[in-house]
């Protein structure tokens, strides 16, 4: 039997959480090193998995199972990755590693902090690799709950209780609605299986798909931040501690989008066809409205929070095109936005930890004291604007091509969002990073430590690497998108 790399990746974090709970809580440095070692292992293994995927063969690889889990219902443990979810596994590996790196300064109960973070990571890995519907929900809920504690305990004092509760309830409502839809699918298929690959062949009637598609798709899309149920996301991002914001905007929102694709679009393509226009409209609102709101924020972190809403709109737009280009772009955008937003939140956290404010008018001249942070933010900003040479361009270009193919008017409106994005990014760069440094910060801003540097360089490096050498990821995602497209009736 081959090395079960996917299971190992997804169970290392929860194993680490258990180990952490057994360690004495006051050995804080030991706890940090254990966490870092585990996160680094996850990262390395996910890189390894990424590069050993054989693109010539394609399809699901590193498959494990199906091993019967609950025999009476046909539930099994079945994992595998293809071009769509493999980059997301890598993304999770990157974000958990960098998230632990920049969390070195967490001083209040770090044992519990890292343990909950790792439980969350197991949930995320588990969803991305799962090929069984029950397993997907099982890990999905594991990924949702630790968020509550992470935000409520270690978050920003002003809003954390409200934001944490709002976020958890929103996501939980979405997931249970999707759960009812998923159960309806399983019993309508009447195949005594929860295996998604088998359910792809179930041949649900068109009426059935049209009725149940919104339950599943929008249930999951809540976590993807689709308008009008995106409301939890900026509040949640802002209230969360830095590593959790990174995880949340970087990985968790992709979890929602991915599940909506995997369970909604792939299992009920007819339903997707009927509901795609509505998704197009809502996602366009996401893109434009999210960007407009981001433009008027005074709080630095809220700008990034709403920019996530705006960018996730692009992912949803890519899905709704239902064509190969759009789906490929959506897949690329999930990865690119994940890394970019993790970088953004890391930068915001570093600035806030030192300046103790996130009010844009009160900040200024940060680039003089923290040049690397400023460079990293500018790289992220260029990605966000879709500048050629950076990963954002590689992702957004196919989305817009696909959109043009499907609905040119939407493409034009959504392109406005990019313009607005440019304006708010420029505003932050000029107000926060350049200009005069306020007197009260003079000499008070310490420089970042080496862990922070590694994290920033890694994240920014990936964004540039993809921008200049897209074939490292684009063909892979395209092969995954092809599989989705085939289910939609494309050749």
């Amino acid at each position, binding site marked *: 039997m081959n090395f079960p790399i996917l299971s190992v990746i997804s169970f290392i974090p929860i194993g680490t959480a258990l180990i952490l709970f057994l360690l004495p809580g006051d050995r804080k440095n030991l706890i940090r090193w254990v966490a870092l070692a585990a996160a680094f292992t996850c990262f390395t293994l996910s890189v390894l998995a990424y590069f050993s995927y054989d693109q010539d063969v394609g399809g699901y690889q590193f498959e494990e199972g199906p091993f019967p889990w609950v*025999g*009476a219902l046909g539930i099994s443990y079945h994992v595998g990755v293809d071009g769509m979810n493999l980059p997301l596994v890598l993304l999770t590996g990157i974000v958990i590693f960098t998230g632990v790196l920049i969390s070195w300064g967490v001083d209040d*109960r770090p044992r*519990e902090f890292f343990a909950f973070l790792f439980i969350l990571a197991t949930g995320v890995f588990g969803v991305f690799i799962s090929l069984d519907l029950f397993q997907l929900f099982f890990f999905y809920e594991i990924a949702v709950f630790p968020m509550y504690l992470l935000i*409520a305990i270690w978050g920003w004092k002003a809003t954390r209780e409200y934001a944490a509760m709002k976020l958890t309830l929103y996501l*939980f409502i979405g997931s*249970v609605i999707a759960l009812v839809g998923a*159960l309806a699918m399983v019993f309508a298929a009447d195949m005594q299986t929860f295996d998604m690959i088998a359910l792809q062949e179930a041949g649900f009637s068109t009426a059935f798909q049209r009725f149940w598609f919104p339950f599943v798709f929008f249930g999951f899309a809540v976590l993807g931040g689709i308008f009008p149920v995106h409301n939890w996301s900026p509040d949640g991002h802002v209230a969360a501690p830095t590593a959790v914001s990174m995880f949340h905007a970087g990985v968790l929102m992709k979890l929602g989008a991915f599940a909506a694709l995997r369970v909604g679009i792939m299992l009920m393509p007819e339903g997707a066809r009927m509901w795609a226009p509505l998704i197009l409209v809502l996602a366009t609102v996401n893109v434009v409205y999210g960007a407009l709101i981001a433009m008027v924020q005074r709080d630095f972190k809220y700008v990034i929070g709403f920019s996530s809403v705006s960018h996730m709109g692009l992912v949803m737009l890519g899905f709704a095109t239902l064509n190969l280009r759009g789906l490929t772009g959506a897949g690329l955008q999930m990865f690119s936005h994940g890394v970019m937003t993790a970088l953004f939140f890391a930068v915001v956290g570093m600035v806030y930890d030192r300046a103790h404010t996130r009010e844009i008018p009160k900040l200024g001249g940060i680039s003089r004291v923290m040049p690397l942070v400023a460079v990293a933010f500018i790289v992220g900003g260029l990605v966000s604007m879709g500048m050629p040479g950076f990963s954002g361009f590689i992702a957004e270009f196919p989305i817009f091509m696909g959109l043009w193919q499907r609905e040119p008017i939407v493409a034009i409106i959504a392109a406005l969002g990019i313009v607005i994005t440019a304006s708010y990014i420029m505003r932050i760069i000029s107000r926060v990073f350049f200009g005069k440094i306020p007197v009260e910060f003079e000499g008070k801003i310490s420089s970042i430590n080496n862990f922070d540097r590694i994290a920033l360089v890694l994240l920014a490096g990936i964004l540039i690497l993809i921008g200049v050498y897209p074939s490292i990821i684009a063909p892979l995602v395209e092969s995954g998108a092809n599989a989705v497209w085939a289910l939609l009736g494309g050749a």
Partner: protein
Amino acid sequence: MAFASFESAHIIIVLPEILLLGLAGLILLLDCFWRERHRRILGWVSAGGLLLTIILAILLSRPEIDGDPILIFGGMLRHDWLGFTFKLIFLFAAAVTSMLSLDMEDLAKRGEYFALMLVAAFGMCLMAAASDLIILLLAIETTSIPLYILAGFMKADDKSTEAGIKYFLFGALTSAVMLYGFSLLFGFSGETNVYRLAAMVRVGDFSPWILLGTALLVLVGFGFKVSVVPFHFWSPDVYEGAPTPITAFISTASKAAGFALLLRVMLTTFPTIEAYWTTIFAVLAAATMTIGNLLAIPQKNIKRLLAYSSIAHAGYALIGLVALSSFGAASIVFYLLGYVITNLAAFAIVIVFSQSAGTEQIADYAGLSRRSPGLALALMVALLSLAGMPPLVGFVAKFYVFAAAVQSGWIWLAIVGVLNAIIGLYYYMTILKVVYLYRSDDEQVSVDISRPAAVALVVCSMLIIGIGTISGPWLDLVVEAAKVLF
């Protein structure tokens, strides 16, 4: 299915019941002869005896796999997997309750306390197996009367006395109504055995409305036992006032026993009016979940909160009954299994905390995660399992119940159920927020956990996680148990 008359070989089948009575007698004897300082061991004797009973029951008196269920003692009891599974649940709950009682100064030295609890457990075992209206009523009363006394056991405490009286009054009233229903059933059919009765109902030409009326009368008694809305009013007061281990026992074992009755009687006796009573039960389930959950939100006392939450859980379990399928019945048994274990863990923490801190107010749990991280973690596991979060048993239990509802086409009920799960999550999280987030002045003072409570907590938590992750074999077991109903 054979109606066997008395055979000595059948004695072995009621071995658990015999052992329970023997254990109760032994404890009363030891109570007379032991000196006061030795009597603390009574709880260990009770727990150990129950453990032994569980082992012996599994070894000696389990039904044959794939064997036909048999009616023993002239049709009084039915020997099948369903009853046996429930018996094990009751015995486990009684054992955990004994261990939890060891911490309570006023209870641990009283032999009659443990004896009464064992007699109640004896009654429950009979409830699970009873297949005759007469033994059914006797079993219910054998369970209830000791529980009334136990609820009011702390005579010096006004709340406990109130709980005992209240429990008794409600219980007596609902029993009387139920007995009237039984008498009507007997009057229609001339039979007391539920299986013969069912056969009569099937061939007889009864108006469905008369049968439905009778079913509703019977339901009053059962509804009281499982605290279904609108028969739930007793439970918050009784739960709050009764000694906490007894609250744990009433909310778990007694409720499960009520469901054992519901399953057997409703599914067997009223086959011709299924369409009517399932609709009634669907409405009751929805009301029970919603009212239980909504009323739990404003509670300040953790025992009252858990009381309302246990009302809500009765609602979730009822969904499985409404589904009216073999898988639905199995999902109820699984749900109860998970619920019993989880609720025992939750009450164990309440007991440990109130022994050490002397309070049951939720606000006083502030800082618990700093005072005792282990206890806080155990509380989190228990509450999240109640809320239905993976990888804990509460998640799979809810999943199976909802799956059963969807499978039988009860989509609206499943949606009401999942929305209720969210309300549940909300108030469980508010407790966790107090535990993990809020600070308190006594953060340096750690919480003492006695050894029996620690053992009970560790066992329950391991089971919560274990059954939650590997639920397949357990589900197979309860599917096997539910087969005998269809």
